[in-house]
């Protein structure tokens, strides 16, 4: 009986996901409104960023409040290679990912032994150093305050992607690829090692997990994916400036992960909906009290956390953790 029920449930889930995919695929054909399509492209880029940070914060449980730096490294790598050396955007994509991962390894290797909150300030510090570097432009390649403009569009087999609808499918492709990879990662040996390190680092080490290597991989993979998002962002907007990669945006990414539910892939999308799409919607709804928008937003964040500390769409493991603590105390 229960076997049939669970089968029904999984069938149910397949139908829901299938319907969702169909709706997402058909959206630009039905809506035909460039503003909303562009907004969803923006949403998609942020969802990829959220998923990339989710590896570091959600899976490995590391305090990372400077993720915008890796996004910046990816975007600027693409921009510099494309503008100065005319490297095609899609060739820049893996390079951006590798460069971002390289930076992640360089900066996180000496600091991984730090306790959670020390790690947090170092990541903030690294984010600020990167932003100041872009801003002050010591090597005259990042364009200083104004940033870089004139980044090319990606083209696939001679087909240039330049309309919002084309970008929609381009970004959608990456979002789906990212989800699939994250799902595989989550259930891999490495994913389980991340969970273990997050739950109890000492026990993980006692069981023979190389905690330093595992944490380093979380940083590297998360950063690489932020680099990919940077590449997509740079080619989508063709202009990048240091202010995009501020501490504030690192905070937004962090909130996306935690509000949605740490370690949960659907949670990241719910979080992105709340942090990116909701303010956009509020902008049109609340136009008479526009200045109140961020005040309400801040209060909403507090209220959300009080009533659903595990996030809006939590990972089952996190939910269990919180419930267990409630019963034991």
């Amino acid at each position, binding site marked *: 009986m229960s076997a049939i029920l669970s089968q029904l449930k999984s069938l149910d889930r397949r139908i829901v996901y299938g319907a969702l995919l169909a709706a997402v695929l058909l959206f630009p054909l039905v809506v035909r409104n460039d503003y909303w399509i562009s907004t969803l492209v923006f949403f998609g880029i942020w969802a990829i960023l959220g998923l990339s940070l989710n590896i570091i914060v959600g899976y490995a449980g590391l305090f990372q409040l400077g993720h915008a730096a890796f996004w910046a490294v990816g975007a600027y790598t693409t921009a510099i290679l494309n503008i100065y050396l005319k490297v095609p955007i899609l060739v820049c994509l893996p390079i951006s990912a590798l460069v971002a991962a390289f930076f992640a390894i360089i900066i996180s290797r000496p600091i991984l032994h730090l*306790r959670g909150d020390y790690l947090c300030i170092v990541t903030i510090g690294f984010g600020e150093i990167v932003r100041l570097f872009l801003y002050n432009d010591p090597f005259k390649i990042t364009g200083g305050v104004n940033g870089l403009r004139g980044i090319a569009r990606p083209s696939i087999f001679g087909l240039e992607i330049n309309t919002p609808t084309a970008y929609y499918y381009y970004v959608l492709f990456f979002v789906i690829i990212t989800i699939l990879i994250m799902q595989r990662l989550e259930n891999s040996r490495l994913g389980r090692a991340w969970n273990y390190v997050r739950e109890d680092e000492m026990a993980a080490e006692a069981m023979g997990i190389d905690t330093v290597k595992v944490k380093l991989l979380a940083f590297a993979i998360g950063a690489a994916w932020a680099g990919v998002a940077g590449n997509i962002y740079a080619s989508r907007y063709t202009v990048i400036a240091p202010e995009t990669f501020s501490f504030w945006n690192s905070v937004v990414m962090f909130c996306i992960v935690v509000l949605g539910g740490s370690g949960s892939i659907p949670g990241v999308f719910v979080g992105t909906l709340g942090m990116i799409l909701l303010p956009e919607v509020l902008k049109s709804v609340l136009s008479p009290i526009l200045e109140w928008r961020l005040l309400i937003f801040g209060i909403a964040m507090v209220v959300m956390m009080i009533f659903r*500390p595990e996030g809006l769409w939590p990972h089952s493991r996190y939910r269990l953790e919180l419930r267990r603590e409630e019963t034991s105390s």
Partner: protein
Amino acid sequence: MGIVLQQLLNGITIGSFYALIALGYTMVYGVLKLINFAHGELFMSGSYLGLTIISILIGAGLGGEALLWALAGVFIVVMAIVAGLGVGIERVAYRPLRRAGRLPAVVSALGVSIALQNAVMLIYGPRYRVYPKGVIPAIYWQVGGIQISLLQVFVLILSLILMATLYYFIHYTRLGTAVRATALDHDVARLMGIDVDAIVRIIFIIGPALGAAGGIMVGLYYGRINFTLGWGYGLKAFTAAILGGIGNIPGAMVGGMLLGLFETLAAGFIPQGGAWKEAIVFLILILILVVRPTGLLGERVAEKV
């Protein structure tokens, strides 16, 4: 030589602002293991409240020496209001999350920070506000080739008094001992008959009050304030707290002073150092943490789960 001394003096003055704010971060962290990201905003609120009250006093015709004496009252009132705000925030936004793990509490703190910042912006407007001039007379002395202003003396002495009082309170009173016991272990402290909630309340009175005092001093010192003041100072003070070893009270004082010194020296003696001073500060922080993972005065303890 004169320039170096002058920069050192300026550095210590700015450092005492950082130290006062850092104390709030470090105390909350010590007791609750929470990074109170709203603390910078409490400091900023204190600065704005001070502006309002001083403006009212000047509007009422107070000036000269009478205003100088009234300033003591301003400090006390503002510190009390901001302490109340701090206790309220703890009650509403942090206490329900005390057992929910660390990430939700951090997001809640960020939410409070955004809300406070925008509330102040709505009340006072987004532009820079000018602090009344001449509350503290512009008197300067020349000592050994360096210039010291009355304002600097005031800032240094008041910070020193506040920090010394706190140090005495934490290390030599019964209540201070209770605070330290709670920071070590909540459960054991409770077994010793300590009311942990009351201790947390005390922490959220002292921290924001010190921050508010720093806020008024920053207003008086720089002459103008903005609603985004809290982000920058908050981040630097948090850095200072980490530098000294978070959770450690003398560490926050030392960290704040050092940060102020690094910053002014970087701005003064490195070519284009002004544009890079934040980067230099963070670089020094990272280097120190590589060598001493728990900060300068932090204890070496393994993190247990």
